[in-house]
């Protein structure tokens, strides 16, 4: 049973069977003191990597795991998002998706085992699979962090089925030892409170194109946001992600239509960042209007240039959303409610364009469905969606894997500009 089938969910019994015999590197988790799922009795856990028991050697896994700092996440710093993963069979898995620096570290740990385990043709994102009742309780509680949801992470374990093969106790790296020495920061500019790295809450690092990066702290007394020169300006991208954890990039990795970025701490300076403007007010309608505005000036310029590369080379995009022939065919193919248009699969060039013209409304339907598909893959993230509208789903995953800065792509910039103007 491939893990992909499991993660996409076939049924809970299959999940249980796998959990009983697979090899997993996990952080065991307890939720409000409960360690096991009440429905199927499987240990709550946050997987770091799932291995193939037929292929991967436990000693080798342990050797590689020993190289990592497998310190359990601090629940206070882990932002959560109850969401669902839907499988091909339509079955829903209820998961608590994890965001923030710890989640990113878990992703890095996962990547450390590249080449092992099952083939991963999806973006790994840390999560805890839970039963529906627990999921509903957490969702309705409005908890934003793991701590608020009563989630605790325990020492990492390498498990083979229910047997614990190895436990990894926390170890402090030299840099972390250094962190224990609390450095004094400048006093709060609003209330004068004396700030140290211990009492001030670190929000993240703010990057500016032409100015030195700054670290953002939150004053515990007056709640003001204080800026200090950045300690690690070279870690701009990561720091920025921390500052707006879950806002756009994490939501992009979320891969769920329901992926709403957890609220990030706001400050006047953060609003000047170039990523995902007004991400909190995302709506599909707004995104569609944005695409329409960028692709055809709201339907005024629908004579698209000939496509020169890819599967549509030699053809033209169609209509106000600039839908390419392959996207049109693929969307019709993927949506059973568009079955009556299945003849479109055999149409090309002007025949396809004529067919679209003869079926007013089909264009809007296809654009809406295609956008929903992109939202499913990349979350409600204008950057990733803007990139994917031009480069496709695979192209976007590839760019994300290569850690390309999507926000600096010309099409994404246009989308962001137009998105900010849309209401």
């Amino acid at each position: 049973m491939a893990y992909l089938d499991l993660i996409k969910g076939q049924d809970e019994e299959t999940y249980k069977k796998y959990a009983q015999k697979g090899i997993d590197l996990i952080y065991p988790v307890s939720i409000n003191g409960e360690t096991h799922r009440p429905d199927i009795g499987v240990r709550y856990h946050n997987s770091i990597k799932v291995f193939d028991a037929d292929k991967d050697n436990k000693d080798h896994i342990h050797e590689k795991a020993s190289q990592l700092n497998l310190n359990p996440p601090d629940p206070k710093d882990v932002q959560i998002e109850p969401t669902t993963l839907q499988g091909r069979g339509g079955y829903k898995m209820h998961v608590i998706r994890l965001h923030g620096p710890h989640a990113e570290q878990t992703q890095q740990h996962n990547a450390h085992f590249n080449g092992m385990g099952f083939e991963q043709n999806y973006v790994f994102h840390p999560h805890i699979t839970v039963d529906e009742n627990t999921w509903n309780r957490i969702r309705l509680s409005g908890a934003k962090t793991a701590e608020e949801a009563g989630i605790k992470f325990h020492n990492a374990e390498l498990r083979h089925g229910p047997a614990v093969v190895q436990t990894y106790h926390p170890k402090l790296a030299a840099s972390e030892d250094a962190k224990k020495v609390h450095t004094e920061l400048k006093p709060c500019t609003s209330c004068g409170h004396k700030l140290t790295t211990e009492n001030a809450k670190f929000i993240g690092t703010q990057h500016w194109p032409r100015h030195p990066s700054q670290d953002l702290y939150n004053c515990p007394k007056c709640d003001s946001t204080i800026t200090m020169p950045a300690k690690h300006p070279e870690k701009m991208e990561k720091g920025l992600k921390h500052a707006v954890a879950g806002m756009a990039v994490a939501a992009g990795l979320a891969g769920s239509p329901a992926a709403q970025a957890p609220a990030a701490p706001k400050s006047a300076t953060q609003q000047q960042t170039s990523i995902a403007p007004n991400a909190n007010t995302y709506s599909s309608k707004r995104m569609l209007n944005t695409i329409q505005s960028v692709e055809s000036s709201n339907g005024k310029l629908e004579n698209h240039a000939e496509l020169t590369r890819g599967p549509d080379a030699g053809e033209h995009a169609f209509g106000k959303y600039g839908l390419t022939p392959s996207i049109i065919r693929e969307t019709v193919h993927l949506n059973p409610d568009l079955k009556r248009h299945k003849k479109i699969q055999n149409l090309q060039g002007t025949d396809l364009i004529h067919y679209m013209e003869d079926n007013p409304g089909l264009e809007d339907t296809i654009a809406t469905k295609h956008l929903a598909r992109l939202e499913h893959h990349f979350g409600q993230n204008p950057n990733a969606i803007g990139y994917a509208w031009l480069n496709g789903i695979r192209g976007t995953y590839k760019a994300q894997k290569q850690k390309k800065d999507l926000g600096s792509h010309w099409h994404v910039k246009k989308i962001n500009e137009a998105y900010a103007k849309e209401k």
Partner: protein
Amino acid sequence: MNLKPEEIESIEDAGILNNQPVKMIRTKGGFWMAVGRPKGKLQQEALTAGSHPAIVKYNLEKQYPDFQPAMMKSEHFADDIKVDRHSHFLSDDLRKSGHDIYSVQKGADIEFQITKHNAEVHSVKAVIQDDAIVLKGMNIDKKFARGMAGATTEKALEFGSKKIRVEAK
């Protein structure tokens, strides 16, 4: 368009649109017309027209999604008749000049109709035989050849027919 009573051959109930009856009128010249009162209009008007009642019904349903068809006496209007539009295979010029290609299928019989402003220009009869679509002659203007080829191919793909044959008359 004004129709005189002596030009009408028959009138039949076609269905209901916005709680108003829709009538199917057949002229003595063989033209079919659906007449009803669209939403927001005070008078009845021709909703759509065509050379074949099934094509009229097809266009009526496309243009007025709220139209509820009634059981009709006319065998041409029966529910087992399937109409398809293949006008996307026509050139821009032919489309702009009001041409269309339809296929009207009942059982194994298919009739391809090429129309201009809903009036029949050419008709090609065909039949599905085993794994082939057999066209019973093809006496059409050559400017429609590509459109006709596309329409026939589309129909063949629909039924999984492997061959398209043209029989000389």
